[in-house]
């Protein structure tokens, strides 16, 4: 089975993000970057499929030189090879999906695994866009997966229940938390990963479909006011809600 796992690098979940001076990106200084947590489920599932059916797992990312770090992690977890499409400007989902699709076409994967979202820009767009560009079926936010011959059966959690879907291979799958327990790389595999190849492909330029105009931190919570419950204080509160908070 030919398995392609698309992964991305995101700021670690405890980072206090600051907007950079350009006003449209985050300040990367001092920020620790990690493999997108949902991609760990995608990668683990890819590895388990290979363990069951044989074949190869290729980890692919679109990003700058520093993204090699997550490819090394993928190789250490057990991916056979890795591809870096070198592109620094990656917050246009379409251009990322387009570049992945162009490479995927040359690889003919049976399964494309992705995380349900990357926790930096949270656009949830990659799996369906990629499927559309490749003309393939896609099932998003999958929490359980079985493959039998050409038939793929996937479960999704929906409000108050489960939904079971079937499709045929090849197929694009995005992973939900709970799909599996991602393994931690074993020390000998970490060392072996050093000698596995990372293929670098220059950016396949596309016109971005969207561009970021501004980025802002959420307005911090306003400080509450301590008040009493006398007649005059209540009318002060009503006045404040009307004129200051403008909620009534």
């Amino acid at each position, binding site marked *: 089975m030919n398995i392609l796992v698309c992964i991305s690098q995101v700021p670690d979940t405890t980072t206090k993000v600051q907007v950079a001076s350009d006003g449209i990106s985050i300040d990367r200084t001092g920020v620790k970057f990690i493999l997108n947590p949902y991609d760990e489920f995608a990668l683990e599932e890819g590895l388990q499929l290979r363990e069951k059916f044989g074949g190869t797992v290729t980890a692919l990312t679109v990003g700058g030189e520093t993204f090699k770090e997550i490819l*090394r992690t993928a190789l250490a977890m057990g991916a056979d090879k890795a591809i870096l499409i070198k592109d620094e400007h990656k917050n246009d989902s379409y251009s990322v999906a387009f570049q992945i699709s162009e490479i995927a076409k040359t690889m003919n994967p049976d399964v494309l695994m992705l995380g349900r979202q990357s926790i930096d820009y949270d656009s949830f767009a990659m799996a369906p866009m990629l499927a559309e560009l490749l003309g393939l079926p896609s099932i998003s936010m999958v929490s359980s997966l079985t493959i039998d011959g050409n038939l793929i059966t996937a479960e999704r959690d929906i409000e108050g229940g489960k939904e079971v879907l079937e499709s045929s291979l090849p197929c694009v799958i995005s992973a939900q938390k709970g799909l599996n327990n991602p393994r931690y790389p074993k020390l000998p595999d970490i060392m072996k990963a050093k000698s596995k190849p990372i293929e670098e492909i220059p950016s396949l330029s596309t016109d971005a479909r969207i561009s970021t105009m501004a980025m802002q931190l959420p307005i911090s919570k306003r400080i509450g006011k301590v008040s009493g419950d006398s007649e005059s204080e209540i009318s002060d509160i009503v006045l404040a809600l009307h004129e200051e908070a403008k909620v009534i």
Partner: protein
Amino acid sequence: MSFQPVDYYGVYNQLSDEERMVRESVADFVDSEVIPIIEKHYQDGTFPMDLVPKMAELGLFGITLPQEYGCAGANYTSYGLAMQELERGDSGIRSFASVQSSLVMFPIYSYANEDMKNKWLPKLAAGTAIGCFGLTEPDFGSNPSGMITNAKKIDGGYLLNGAKMWITNGSLANVAVVWAKYEGEICGFIVEKGMKGFSAPEMKGKHSLRASVTSELIFQDVEIPESHKLDVKGLKGPLSCLTQARYGIAWGAIGSAIGTYQSSLDYAKSRIQFDKPIASFQLVQDKLVWMLNEITKGQLICMQLGKLKDSGLMNPNQVSLAKRNNVDIAIQCARIARDIHGANGILQEYPIMRHSANLESVRTYEGTHDIHTLILGADITGIQAFK
């Protein structure tokens, strides 16, 4: 996401991809497999045997030895980082890995013949065999050269007699690296479980390192085949092993200090007294800053020591300084942490007392604090003050 230790000077940003991944993998392992179960074992005074195959699978035994024996083949900085994370969990678990890797696999790899290497190293790496290291005796601790255990030549091998004490993993071990006098010189022997005349009763009643097995080793006319004698003579044999293990302890102690510091910082920020978090009082801040300060220095010592060791430039005295300093500050951090946690500091819900009690053993084994002072004193003055 993996546990991120306090890193005031950005030392972990200097790690290679491999070193970073090793630390993160071991940190994940410790958080999911060690911390949830360790308290119970500590209370019961048992070693968590279930962890052995898991530690082996992760590659924690003989980390720096070559892959042909089933080991990871990683560098010494990686080894140090792994010990740091393990000891953030518990000194007993780190001790198990230290003994297996540095005190058993290292001498077999360095001094045993190819048959012995092939027989034991893959099993020790896979955790299907456990090893121990017998140097200390009831009457010879800091002064091992006085040891009484001895070997006499017999046809086809040696006859071993004597007793060892305080031996980590002794009762669990399938194989023991034992140091004994032969023709007046210290020599190493590979003793296997089941050899006639060899027994290893467990020592009970410890208040420290309770999640680790400590034993006596007793040898009564144990016949050791010729091929089991290690190819090294004199105190430098065991000392070369101790240098490896002490190196790991220097890193491990920082892991323990990171654990007690992190718990203290969280606690101080959330515990309210006099209507404020106790972290807002200057006296508490002073304590937290002291811990941060000493941990940062300890981290810098370890990182530099790792670089020296990986480039073959480290000398054993530098390890003495690191072990001596880092264990000392880790004990002080545990003490301060106990204080910051107030009454909660004595409860098993917090790791503080366990670390604190564990470190009392760590301060004594692998060369006591004072013995390392004397090693360093001798090095800088040229005058030995041991005798």
